[in-house]
């Protein structure tokens, strides 16, 4: 019996995964508990202590929020912003990640770490400085300006997700396609992108999520002209009506859930085993 315990330890290289699972489950509970509370709150008209669940139910607040023109416009802006940022981030990140993943050059690790510098410079400091520059460039208060500023926190995570693919990427597939008569564009669309598919799905998910929940930079550069969902949410929090907060939080959580579902589908339907680390 002592030996079995030892074996389990050793087969996990000294780790047992169970404490980690428990810890993670606890975190989830802490995290989702309040959200569930909010949802219940949003749907309740009467909920008195010590009832476990609200006495009467309604989705009125939720529907009211959703049919509000201001909310609809914010949803549209947020989606457009997230979409454009995701696309741009992929276009910039793919070649960078390919180079960093495939090639070993001196100083490569340092470049990788510097990629993360943007995430540590306090956004307020950056934002204020950028605001001045963007004002001069006529980008302040415009969607284009917000897109650019979103790229700062988005790019590092996108590149990082894609490097994972290209570190294990085998250029032999492209060479094989070439000698079979495929030109550069055909190779890009029919070999490289399908092979990197799962990684691209994850990178796109990251880009969208980071952009979607951005608040400070949007506010600073958008200057009140670009209204996104997180800004409505913050306003509601300041307003203090729990039902409104809950309804907006629910709306806010929708698109990320859809994005996660899409990414999960892209990951599981692929039969590729190349560069598949996710």
């Amino acid at each position, binding site marked *: 019996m002592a030996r079995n315990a030892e074996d389990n330890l050793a087969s996990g290289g000294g780790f047992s995964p169970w404490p980690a699972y428990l810890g993670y489950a606890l975190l989830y509970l802490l995290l989702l508990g309040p959200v569930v509370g909010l949802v219940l709150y949003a749907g309740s008209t009467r909920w008195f202590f010590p009832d476990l669940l609200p006495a009467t139910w309604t989705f009125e607040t939720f529907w009211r929020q959703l049919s509000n023109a201001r909310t609809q416009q914010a949803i549209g802006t947020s989606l457009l912003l997230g979409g454009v940022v995701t696309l741009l981030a992929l276009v910039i990140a793919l070649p960078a990640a390919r180079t960093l993943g495939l090639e070993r050059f001196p100083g490569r690790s340092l470049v990788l770490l510097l990629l993360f510098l943007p995430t540590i410079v306090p956004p307020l400091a950056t934002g204020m400085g950028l605001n001045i520059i963007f004002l001069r460039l006529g980008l302040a208060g415009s969607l284009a300006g917000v897109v650019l500023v979103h790229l700062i926190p988005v790019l590092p995570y996108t590149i990082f997700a894609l490097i994972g693919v290209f570190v294990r990427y*085998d250029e*032999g*597939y492209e*060479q*094989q*396609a*070439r*000698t*079979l*008569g*495929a*030109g550069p564009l*055909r190779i890009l669309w*029919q*070999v490289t992108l*399908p*092979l990197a*598919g799962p990684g691209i799905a994850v990178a796109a998910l990251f880009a969208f999520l980071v952009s979607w929940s951005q608040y400070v930079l949007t506010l600073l550069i958008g200057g009140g002209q670009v209204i996104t969902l997180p800004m409505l949410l913050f306003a509601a929090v300041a307003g203090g009506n729990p039902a409104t907060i809950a309804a907006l939080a629910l709306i806010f959580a929708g698109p990320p859930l859809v994005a996660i579902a899409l990414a999960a589908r892209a990951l599981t339907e*692929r*039969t*590729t*085993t*190349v560069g598949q680390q996710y």
Partner: protein
Amino acid sequence: MTRIALEHLHKTYPRQAAPALERLSLEVEAHTLLALLGPSGSGKSTILKLIAGIEDPDQGDICFDGRSILSIPAHRRGAVLMFQKAYLFPFLSVADNIAFGLRAKGVNKATIQTEVQRMLELVGLPAMAHRRPAQLSGGEQQRIALARALVVQPQVLMLDEPFSSLDPAVRQNLQEAVRRIQRELGITTILVTHDRSEALAMADQVALIERGRLVAHAPPQRLYERPPHRQAARQMGIDTFLTGRVTGTTLQSQFGPLTVKEVPSHGGEALYAIRPEHLSLGYEPCAHSLAATVQSQIYRGDHVEVQVSLGETVLRVRTNAACWSNGSGVFLHIPPEHLFLLEEARPEPSRLV
């Protein structure tokens, strides 16, 4: 179909001190199969990459039928390279993998379908069209990769150790399939291998490559039976070399006097070699024997390899039975008719200026 000429090819990879290829010239006749044989890292694969256009030479030229192809991009050379790894696209079915090259050429759908089926039959896997590559065994994957390479009717087919990751039985089977198909279609083919027996069995011509240079180039049988010099002889499995002056028909070798049949045309030191299967052992001396000591015996099924020492030197002798005891004194018979003359070690070709 296509005659290939490599002219003074020189290639050094970035951040590498030694050149991968050093002014290498070589010709491959149309319709024939040339095997490039040499140890790993000798530059064999680089030759294929240069022909395929995956790498560019630093100097030199490559011609198909007398016309330089260096200015043609890789995907228009009609030179298909098949790697050790099958590189089947995992997201495509077997049929779509085979069709890949035809689609790139813009061939119409109906033709593609019949061609794919014809190729599947040619490589002996007619019912695999709808499988995924992951569902195939290693040997099947290589067959599909071969079909994918052949379906585009390449001018030149290049095979980079395509069998070395396979089990011996599967390997032999696939070697025979490739040889049969190559002869049937008459495609000019270059096979890279580090397996002597594979090169001898498959090739019309064998080119020995060592450290980026061509060491010898001859038909398999000539190369095996009469390697021109020491380097080639070593690669053909010979490790018994005798040197010394020849007076009349007597070689004053490093181990003692021996009778020879072939006599060098010039005076001075001569270099002789003999294959291990032409040596034999006995307890009694004879006219052409040297005293030796048995070191060890290795049973190899169809023969026994006996290692004997003559002074400091250890030689391998191929015999039929392991009836020698280690440490015992024996006589090594060296039949004069199998001792053959080698060219003196050639002077190193001067480095490129």
